[in-house]
């Protein structure tokens, strides 16, 4: 990583740490609700990063990352509900469980490539909500009723609100995970992952154990997304099969493509995008109908769809790619 971009990242982190402390000064701007919303963006960014490790850096497709998100969320919820495990300890537990599930799923997935893998993962995403309702698991998962949880309490008597604390907790997890991903991608293993993506046969010929790398990447990717799921269980304080429908997986994919495939920074943008646009599309349609009084009864998803097409058309490399191109053009113009 270049020194200048390192400075940038540090700057953003410092800013992210300071913002919630402004709450007493601007209570309406830095409200608890907005911090909660940013926390959901952070969680989405981690999930998208998980998918990005698999698709962006290793070239394997998944339409089913919602399944791992669900497994992570339920692991956390069951541990908290049945065994009274503190919420912070559920994060590594969810990571381990999801790594194992992802690794095991990665084994048969080795035989499947491209579209076939996409379909297999799609089936996984369809199956998981049903499995959660299954009779034998009902004692654990609470069936359709789901599990109601307590929100994480602020530790050590810190003078923070629950939402401020949740925000810091998510931020911390995100920084650790992104730091880990950046280091991994910069290592020999990371180069091997990308070599498999770029030229599978060449990578194999060079002596990279492609089967091992592909399955382990699947596991790590699932673990990342599972951690995001566990965080969401903490943030929402409720899990139910209805939260993990097929659309969740599609949303991660949208976040990935819009943010930027194969870009860490893009994962953050992708997470922000899907929370923000999903919400503002709804507010926008309401604004058009109620406040402007125009007779357009657009559904929020129409607005969402139009925005999506516009972005893909204008920035085929995702927002991260688009920003990079714009930056290069500006510099080129100056030089």
């Amino acid at each position, binding site marked *: 990583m270049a020194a200048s971009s390192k400075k940038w990242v540090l700057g953003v982190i410092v800013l992210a740490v300071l913002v919630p402390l402004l709450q007493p000064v601007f209570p309406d701007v830095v409200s608890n609700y907005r911090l909660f919303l940013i926390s959901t963006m952070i969680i989405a960014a981690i999930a998208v990063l998980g998918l990005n490790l698999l698709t962006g850096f290793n070239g394997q497709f998944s339409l089913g990352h919602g399944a791992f998100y669900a497994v992570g969320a339920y692991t956390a919820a069951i541990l908290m509900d049945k065994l009274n495990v503190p919420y912070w300890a559920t994060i590594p537990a969810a990571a381990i469980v999801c790594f194992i599930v992802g690794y095991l799923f990665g084994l048969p997935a080795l035989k499947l490539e491209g579209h076939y893998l996409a379909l297999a993962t799609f089936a996984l995403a369809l199956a998981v909500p049903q499995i959660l309702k299954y009779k034998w698991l009902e004692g654990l998962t609470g069936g359709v009723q789901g599990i109601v949880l307590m929100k994480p309490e602020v530790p050590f008597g810190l003078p923070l609100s629950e939402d401020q604390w949740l925000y810091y907790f998510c931020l911390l997890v995100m920084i650790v995970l992104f730091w880990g991903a950046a280091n991994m991608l910069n290592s020999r293993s990371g180069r091997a992952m990308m070599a498999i993506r770029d030229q599978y046969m060449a990578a194999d010929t060079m002596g990279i154990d492609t089967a091992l790398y592909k399955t382990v990447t699947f596991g790590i990717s699932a673990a990342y997304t599972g951690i995001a799921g566990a965080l969401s269980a903490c943030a*929402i304080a409720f899990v139910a099969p209805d939260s993990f429908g097929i659309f969740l997986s599609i949303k991660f994919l949208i976040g990935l493509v819009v943010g930027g495939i194969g870009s860490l920074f893009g994962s953050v943008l992708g997470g922000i995008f899907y929370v923000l646009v999903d919400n503002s599309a709804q507010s926008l349609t309401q604004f058009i109908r109620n406040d402007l009084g125009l007779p357009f009864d657009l559904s929020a998803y129409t607005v969402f769809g139009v925005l999506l097409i516009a972005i893909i058309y204008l920035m085929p490399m995702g927002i991260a790619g688009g920003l990079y191109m714009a930056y290069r053009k500006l510099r080129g113009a100056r030089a």
Partner: protein
Amino acid sequence: MKTNRRIFLGGVSAAAVLSTSGRTFAQKKYDEGATDKEIKIGHTNPYSGPASSYGVIGKCEEAYWKSVNERGGINGRMVKFITMDDGYNPAKTVEVVRQMVEQDRVLCLFNTLGTPTNSAIHRYMNQKKVPQLYVSTGASKWGKYKEFPWTMGFQPDYHTEAVIYAKHILATVKDPKIGVLMQNDDYGKDYWEGFKEGLGKDVNKVVKHVTYETTDPTVDSQIIQLKDAGANVFFNIAIPKFAAQAIRKVADIGWKPIQYLNNVSSSVASTLKPAGLENSQGMITALYLMDPTDKQWNDNAEMKVWRDWMNKHMPGANQDDGNYIFAYAVSTLMEETLKRCGDTLTHENLMKQATSFKKFRVPLLLPGITVSTSPTDYYPIQSVRLARFKGETWELFGDVMSAEGS
């Protein structure tokens, strides 16, 4: 300084006027979400996603509050009805409800739809002490006034309804052998639990209990299993599509049990017509709302008012859809609750008014059914009337029934 003094004087004289007029004016008191001009209420509904057929409820309620405002609002205040799509996803419900409570600062939530979605915000609303009124779900858990004093249901819960069927079977059928078809989710289970409770020690009279998933193509094999078990009573806990399939199959295989149909599928247009009216004769259900497709209500005054209202405010809507009846009825109860709050639009007073209805008549409920609540009774509608299908309509019989002790 001059202006300050003037304001002070004005204040004093105003106070004097007020004190001479005594206590004839109740003092205006507001919580967040209410002002002299406006009352904000929040609502969530699945306008998108797998449960989007319920979206018409939200649309109808939006039209209702618009019509209230056209009539001049409630005690001179306009109602701002904020409705958000949660796609039946509980995680999304939390997000949009927090937005409504913390950013838009609504006075209360009204008729938020769905069991999992309401479960997700149940604790939050009670922590915030913001009323979550007349939720749109028939689960039995919305009346726990001790733990959740800010949450209240509306319709008779599935549990109570099933208890009534069980008691009716025990009282009228000689040597019953009961076969049960159940949708495998929270709604089905709520009925099933209530049914078992109603049977009490006679629970062994259930000779076969089968389930289906909403993704199943048919319930044919389940019906055959019930027949083969030798059942002479059939309790049908299914949504319209599957209930109709079941009724048809029962007739096809020449099985002639006494049939009980859950209220969820009591619509003539969406269940009994597809099942075949000739196959539905003699079936028993429990009703609390009028069915717009049932001809016996065609000349009912309340039904006529409703049809006029629909023609004016929801032109083009399918008036056979019972969801519009439901939305209209629950909205009138909400309007009345707000009206009774007068100028004291606080969370506390809202709950106080909501818990002090005494035999209040809500239009479109069946004759004889009223709304009663108290600080220890958070179930507004608790009674139903049994009806038997005859010809093309439901024929009410017997008295208004309620489950004992609830």
